[in-house]
């Protein structure tokens, strides 16, 4: 029915199909690698602020600095004023004095410190911190063990599928509302039972609609 030369096309066609399959798989895999999602992104900040020291060793609550996290979409980076609340009264040894120099400078001049954004969602995704931390999702779920980080880096992929994983199965991540900022909290019962109970109690029904985050 077909001329003979078309026999070669079969091989060509199979080859092309195989190439497309590999290509698509390659692109998708690449999309999920930390290279593309920026897991581990750890820029040098203008102030060598150590979360490990402040949140870990000194045990400051996250909300001492990130005040708006329960009220607003943004957790907010604290104003220099907040730093000075303690540092005005703290004497540091000479080695560490240099570290707070930019803070003092900013406080003196009133010029803000330009921090580099690490957890950077695209502009068309509207994430709201308050809707999560007031509903049983701990800081550690998305930001990792900040209290052990000398320099903060991105711990989770922050991709849409990663968001949706949790929106589909919030039980895996829910915790009591008084343990939100506790980085080292461990459930005393199996997470699945606790999660299911908390989900019912807090009436958690995470939206999976596009309109939940995209407007």
């Amino acid at each position, binding site marked *: 029915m077909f001329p003979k030369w078309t026999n070669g096309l079969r091989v060509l066609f199979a080859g092309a199909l195989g190439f497309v399959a590999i290509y698509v798989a390659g692109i998708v895999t690449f999309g999920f690698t930390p290279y593309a999602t920026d897991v581990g992104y750890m820029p040098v900040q203008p102030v060598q602020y150590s979360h490990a020291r402040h949140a870990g060793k000194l045990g400051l609550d996250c909300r001492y600095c990130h005040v*708006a996290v329960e009220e607003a979409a943004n957790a907010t980076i604290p*104003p220099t004023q907040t730093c000075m609340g303690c540092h005005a009264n703290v004497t540091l040894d000479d080695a560490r004095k240099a570290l707070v120099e930019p803070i003092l400078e900013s406080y003196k001049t009133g010029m*803000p410190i330009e*921090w580099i954004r690490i957890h*950077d969602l695209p502009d068309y995704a509207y994430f*709201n911190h308050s809707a999560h931390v*007031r509903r049983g999702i701990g800081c550690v779920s998305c930001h990792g063990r900040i209290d052990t980080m000398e320099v903060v880096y991105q711990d989770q992929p922050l991709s849409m599928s990663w968001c949706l994983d949790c929106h589909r199965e919030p039980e895996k991540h829910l915790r009591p509302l008084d343990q939100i900022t506790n980085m080292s909290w461990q459930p005393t019962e199996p997470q699945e039972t606790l999660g299911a109970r908390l989900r019912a109690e807090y009436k958690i029904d995470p939206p999976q*609609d*596009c309109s939940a985050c995209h*407007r």
Partner: protein
Amino acid sequence: MTGKQHWRSLGELSDSPRFRAFLESEFPPLPEAWSASSRRQFLKVMGASLGLAGLTGCRWPKETIVPFASRPENRIPGVPVQYATAMELGGYARPLLVRSYDGRPIKIEGNNLHPFLAQRGRADALAQAAILDMYDPDRSVNPLKRQDGRAVPRTWGEFLAETREPLAKLRAAGGDGLLIVSQASSSPTLAALRERLHSECPKARWFEYEPVSFDNEREGTRIALGAPHRTWLKLDAADLVVSFDDDFLMSHPAAVRYTGDFAAARARADTDRTMNRLVVIESNYSVTGSKADHRFAERASDVPVRLCQLAAELLKKGLKLPPAAATIAEALKGFDAGALQARYLPELADDLLAHAGRVLISVGPRQPAEAHAVAALLNGALGATGKTVAYIEAADAARPTHAAAIAALAQALGGDGRKMVLVLNANPVFDAPAELNFAELLSRHDAIHLGLYADETAAVSGWHVNAAHFLESWGDARAWDGTLSIVQPLIAPLYDGKTAVEMLAHVLGDEKSTAYELVRGTHSAAAPAGTFETWWQKALHDGFVEGSAARLKAPGVAEANWAAVLDSIRSAYAPPAEGEFELVFAPDYKVYDGRFANNGWLQELPDPITKLTWDNAAYISPADARRLNVRSGDFLEVAAEGRTLRIPAYVLPGHARGSVTLPLGYGRRSAGVVAKRVGFDTYSLRTASGPAVVRKASVKRGRGSRELATTQDHHAIDSALGRKEMRGRVPELAREGTLGEYKRNPKFVETRAHIFPLHQLFAGADYSQGPRWAMAIDLARCTGCSACVVACQAENNVPVVGREEVLRGREMSWIRIDRYFTGDPESDEVGVIHQPLACQHCENAPCEQVCPVAATVHDSDGLNVMVYNRCIGTRYCSNNCPYKVRRFNWFYNHHGPKHPRSGGRWLQTKLTDIEKLGNNPDVTVRSRGVMEKCTFCVQRINAVKIDAKNNQREIRDGEILTACQQTCPADAIVFGDLNDPSSAVSKLFGNDRAYELLQHLNVRTRNRYLANLKNPVREPEHPAEHAQPHGSGHGAAEGHAG
């Protein structure tokens, strides 16, 4: 199909070739965008994109977070805050509430605490669009000094240094040779400074000029009531409103309040089956006219005569006049209604007498003072004064009229000696009477011009100083009802602009005082000691001063020479002559008197009646158009008093014969890029002898024509094939009935369309859980004022596309207002129905079914959601949308190659940094290549949802307001949850007048329209009902249930 004919435009009605060509290409001509580019340009662009291809794979741009060094109290980054302020226009404050994100004002709404707005928080289109003016990159950014014919940028400090000495000299001379020209203002602070100026410099002269004003009302009430007054209409208390050329629903400082009161009186039809009646006698088709139950097209110069004839008719029928006006009875005899063929007057007189005490007669600001006097007299005699009409005594009774002021100024400028002229925000070179030749007059003197733009007046002034926008300034102003508001800034002046009070302080030798100190100073002087700070905080917070409204009065008619009043009306009257026209100058609905000409939102806003964008035109009646042999767009040569103007005609059904309406404010010569080459300067025909109406003018057909960018035929629902069928179906789309019909048959809407049995092939989604958002729009309330269109544009970052793109049908507005004419275009009684149309959020959405990439889907609340990131721009959805409410974005970040700001010459692909500040950060800024449409303001829904969930509470009905609903002065738009049977929207869905648009398509919209209602004196002889029974003469016979 019998009954009233409904149609969209004359082009459609006559099936003109131009209209047909437009319809046949649903997305009109595409390839032109390419034709301009050469091969070289193509290669350049391709080369660039190849070069950029190598850059992919990097991390997205590094972003910084910049916290305050010291955060202000109560300020949470990213959380909007609202502040009360006010905008002064024409000397009257519009109370506003402005939303600010991180110090950037984003959205203007009405002040919902303000008593003048009846605590309803609505704002009109002009006030809402003012925010774009503030971010306008064309604003003047520094003082300019004119040297050798060139404007040289200077600083405020240099201005102070250079003008200090001459001003000191002037002060020493008692102000001799100092002339000040200002706009009308109700600011107590400005008045206090003016007082100071008059006491320190008694020889300085002050002139207050507005091209459009209520001076005739002042002068008319001065005749009739003995002192100048403002009229306050209590539209909610009136059963019969007769408007003589008064557009109180749109062109009025109290229009927002009036619209609310008027709509409430309309909506009584639902509760107690009564309704107010509106009779409008006017020349141009106004927004008020479009809501009339009876509208009579009369030349504007005939209107005073009609009013007198009505008075004569009322006297004949036994109306008792107060003794003070007894002389008028004799004088009125000359106005015999019969002889002048006003067939409707006897019936109108009967109706007025039947409703005495619950009627009101209003007269428009362009009618002569004498007409206002007669109206005040009639209102008194009909028992309206005190009940439906109240008066507010004018504060500045001694002020000369604006017309007198500008004439006196011209005289002073024409005299000997070089004078110092201080122009405060006014633009007399553009808007003063043409024969004064103001540019030449002003250039002979030393002028200092303070203004937002380096405009026409700045061009002939020695100094121009950039003014602060009202959102950047401290000030104070009074609303139409006299309530005092403090104007507080939302942001520090972007370009260090100055306010009028600061400039005046400088003239008085006070360079130190800021506007803040001056305004506080004015009011602290009046407050009892120790209480001022509390008073000030409360005034700022509330946006008004409690109890500061003027007292409403009901003065009796004063002794006046009524015979002289009537003589003046009679002598000014000339019967219509063949081939002769009157000219009527009207403030434009969008650019007002020209001051908003550089505002893209307003330029692109379709005029409520003509649907004209980016242009003005001479409105003429179809009969005159036929006689002159012109169609819309053909040029007319309009000549009056030796001046001529070439302007395209717009054939407006329902316009009075022998009359031409010329909207003011276009054809700006120096205003910014947006206003450039837009429209025609009608001020060039306007002289002191006819500031509003020119009685005698000649109009002939001019050479050539200009394509007018009207949107009325855009998004026509049908193809050429079904157009005839469609015309029959318009009564089904925009349904209308009379009150009588509504009483007889509450479900009259169902007679306007066939009810098909609607079957579903597959089970629809279940929306019984959670909210089910829906919207209801009451056509009986809607006046077409278009405040919702601007609200949507501001809230949702909707781009402006420019005239060229509007002509291609690419305008982007998410909500449009369809305007349908009803009745015979040649008859006087051409009606209008306004129908706001946004996405209908069909549960069974046709757009979703054709999207190949699932970029438009339903969410669990039943919203039809548009996912910009999935959209690949096939535009299938738009093709399949029966309502034509989807918009394809052709533009890069609001600015395409043909954007007005690019002048059509170069590719400006980004918003300027200043413009970006004005975007709403809660809504994605879309770029080229995606579809967009109404989202039911999903950002507002989500904000309330998150707050409700965080606080573990239910969402209250009315807590979520869409932007269009929030601002609707008529309360025509209601949004809410259908799953809550007690919600306002649920109740409206159950209203007898509710109907679904294109119900037979079974798309199950989440929108209901409530049919328009009219309240005519008599039922029409052919009620616009379906005369035929089901199944005959309507095409598709199959599927009928009967």
